[in-house]
């Protein structure tokens, strides 16, 4: 099932980013010099686009995750399974579009 594959891919992708993120924030313990120097990496446009993809992965994983939880714990959910899928995707797309719009605008 594609939604399950995307759930896994988005989860592992976010995890990989998280490990990088822990290392970079760890540098804050070395003071403003090294930390602020590292930030130039994050201002690179390619990285900014990667961040938008990351936010997409987080939002998809969250929306699909809520759908999984509903189907797991709500016995009647199977009756509206298709609608739940559409709602989850709608929540994902609307949230992502709004956030991505702000992030793209901030790039300029």
């Amino acid at each position, binding site marked *: *099932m594609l*939604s*399950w594959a995307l759930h*896994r891919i988005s*989860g*592992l992708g*976010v*995890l990989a980013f*998280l*490990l990088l993120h*822990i*290392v970079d*924030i*760890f540098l*804050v*313990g070395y*003071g*403003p010099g090294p*930390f*602020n120097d590292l*930030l130039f990496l*994050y*201002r690179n446009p390619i990285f*900014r686009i990667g*961040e938008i993809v990351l*936010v997409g992965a*987080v*939002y998809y994983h*969250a929306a*699909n*995750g*809520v*759908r*999984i*939880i509903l*189907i*797991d*714990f709500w016995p009647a959910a*199977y009756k509206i*399974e*298709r609608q739940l899928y559409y709602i989850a995707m709608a929540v994902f797309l609307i949230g992502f579009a709004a*956030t991505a719009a*702000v*992030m793209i605008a*901030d790039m300029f």
Partner: protein
Amino acid sequence: MTTPHTRVGRPRPTGNNFELYSWYFFRISGLLLILLAVTHVVIMHVVNNVSQIDFNFVAHRWGSPFWRSFDWLLLILALLHGFNGARLSVDDYIRNRGWRIFAHSVIWSALIIFIVLGTIAIVTFNPASFSNATASAGR
């Protein structure tokens, strides 16, 4: 969709064991993480702008024990949730016994290492120890 028990995620494990608790942990931590992570994204990317975020931003934010705790909770839950998923992925895709031992060792080691790294970063951060004239959180 004729069967009443169509599945999306894994079925709930039977028995009173680690897998059962990890199944529940995914769902409980997942809901908490939605709150924590989406707030984090909104603060960093919507309310603020990544190009404004620098050492002073972090120092100001971590001057508040609330945000330090918030970030630490996000750290721990995300690592546990994520590495639990990685563990399941290894179980699903890696069959060779030797590689399974290797992969699971990497996962558990990385989990501990990153919990320690992140906790050290959050708990020991003291901006006052840097001679930064504009640090607003040094008290």
